[in-house]
């Protein structure tokens, strides 16, 4: 009879343990499911929110915006052939298309999104550029007073070094203090001769880059870290501050040229539409306005603008010439109180 009592107690405990484990396991599984669901929900909300922001930012040119990223990183496509998507890193959600919005940014944005927008005028408004960065991305200016103007043009929310621009500050003086990316910026210097601080040398090659701006040639050279040095990667071109800033914000030359391609495509369409408008206007102008030669001049300029679709030294020089010509023509027409070309 005693032995029967002993077996009964043990059996009860085994029974309780098994059932308890099953119930506990169930709750753990449910909690895990809820956690995953919340994460997906957060990612989805973030993606929708950014989508909305990127559309409305276009109208807020010259406005600095900072958006916190709650434990999420944004990944932006920065390949030459594919610069049309952004998504949340490590997310199973599909990306959002940026096929028509030129977004100049690093490939990954951490902690918070620093955004800025500028209109691109050629001289009519051809597009709105969106610039994205992160406070954990260091912009290091190597050179003297020639960089002051550029520094002043850039938004204040960027992490800029040194605090005061000075010739005595060298690239090797910059010590990395937990920045995930570093971009060296210089004018008319050779970044391949730049020395790097040991803390910068330890960083991965894709985390350190440089650009060298050549204002006389309207060109920008891109450099990428390779082991302990900065290696030349290619040269591209810009026309004005908006495009220069675009190169400064871009992850690499491919990303800049891909997004500029989007901008040029829209410019071609708007030029075509303005050309058509110009023709319609010319049939209805008053006698005094129709005598002005500028409308006919504008037609040929706009036709040339419709064909500029590549980023080369010649094409961008042509773009600048047309821009100046259209601007002058429009000013003359405006002075005569006639309907303007743009």
């Amino acid at each position, binding site marked *: 009879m005693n032995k029967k009592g002993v077996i009964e107690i043990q059996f009860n405990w085994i029974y309780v343990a098994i059932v308890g484990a099953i119930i506990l396991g169930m709750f753990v599984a449910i909690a895990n499911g809820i956690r995953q669901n919340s994460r997906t929900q957060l990612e989805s909300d973030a993606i929708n929110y950014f989508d909305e922001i990127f*559309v409305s930012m276009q109208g807020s040119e010259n406005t600095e915006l900072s958006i916190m990223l709650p434990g999420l990183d944004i990944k932006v496509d920065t390949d030459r052939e594919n610069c049309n998507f952004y998504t949340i890193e490590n997310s199973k959600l599909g990306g959002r298309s940026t096929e028509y919005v030129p977004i100049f940014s690093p490939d990954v944005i951490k902690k918070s999104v620093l955004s800025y927008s500028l209109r691109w005028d050629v001289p009519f408004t051809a597009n709105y550029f969106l610039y994205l960065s992160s406070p954990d991305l260091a912009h290091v200016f190597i050179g003297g007073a020639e960089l002051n103007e550029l520094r002043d043009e850039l938004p204040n929310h960027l992490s800029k070094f040194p605090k005061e621009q000075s010739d005595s500050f060298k690239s090797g003086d910059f010590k990395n203090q937990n920045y995930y990316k570093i971009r060296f910026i210089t004018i008319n210097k050779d970044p391949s001769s730049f020395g790097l601080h040991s803390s910068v040398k330890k960083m991965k090659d894709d985390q350190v880059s440089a650009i060298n701006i050549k204002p006389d040639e309207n060109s920008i050279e891109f450099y990428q870290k390779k082991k302990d040095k900065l290696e030349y990667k290619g040269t591209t071109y810009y026309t004005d501050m908006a495009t220069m800033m675009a190169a400064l914000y871009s992850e690499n030359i491919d990303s800049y040229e891909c997004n500029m391609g989007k901008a040029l495509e829209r410019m071609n369409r708007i030029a075509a*539409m*303005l050309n058509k408008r110009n023709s319609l206007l010319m049939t*209805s102008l008053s006698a005094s306005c129709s005598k002005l030669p500028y409308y006919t001049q504008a037609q040929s300029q706009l036709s040339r603008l419709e064909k500029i679709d590549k980023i080369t030294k010649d094409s961008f020089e042509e773009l600048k010439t047309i821009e100046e010509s259209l601007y002058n023509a429009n000013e003359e027409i405006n002075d005569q109180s006639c309907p303007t070309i743009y």
Partner: protein
Amino acid sequence: MKTISKKNKKAQLQIMENVFVLIIIFIILIIAFVFAIGMQRSAQKDKLDELREIELIKKSQILNFFPELQCSDNNNLEPDCYDIYKIMSFKEKMEEDDAFLRYYKFLFGNIKITIHRYDPSPNTQNWFDPVLLFDNPKSEDLGIKIVRFPILLRNVIEEKDYFGVIEVGVYE
């Protein structure tokens, strides 16, 4: 013999009691689970409706920053103002140039843009024929959500601004 049988039956009843308690707990949990799923589904439906409306707002906002149609006085773009000659040119270009049409189909997505002009003068009070500027419906007709905004319609030749309404419909 009778006593042993009674004791056996007593033990079986005791286990059944535990089993019933567990079954009831599981039934309650399942009811709660089904209820939670139901609430989740309802919340998801609300979320989907909200997303559709956000999509509508986004599409209509594209037109707020649209130099292709906006009035521009020496490149000073005016909000809430559309240039009649730009509207005419844009419409004509879409009709005659496939590449142009394709580009804007991708840019806008499945939306419909109609422009209405109204003369509120006491002696006229007249709606003009609407201009269908752009229409890219989906293959399936699941309805359309519409947002309307008042706009100025500028005729640069006549130097007049007319009262207009732009209607943006997003296909669902």
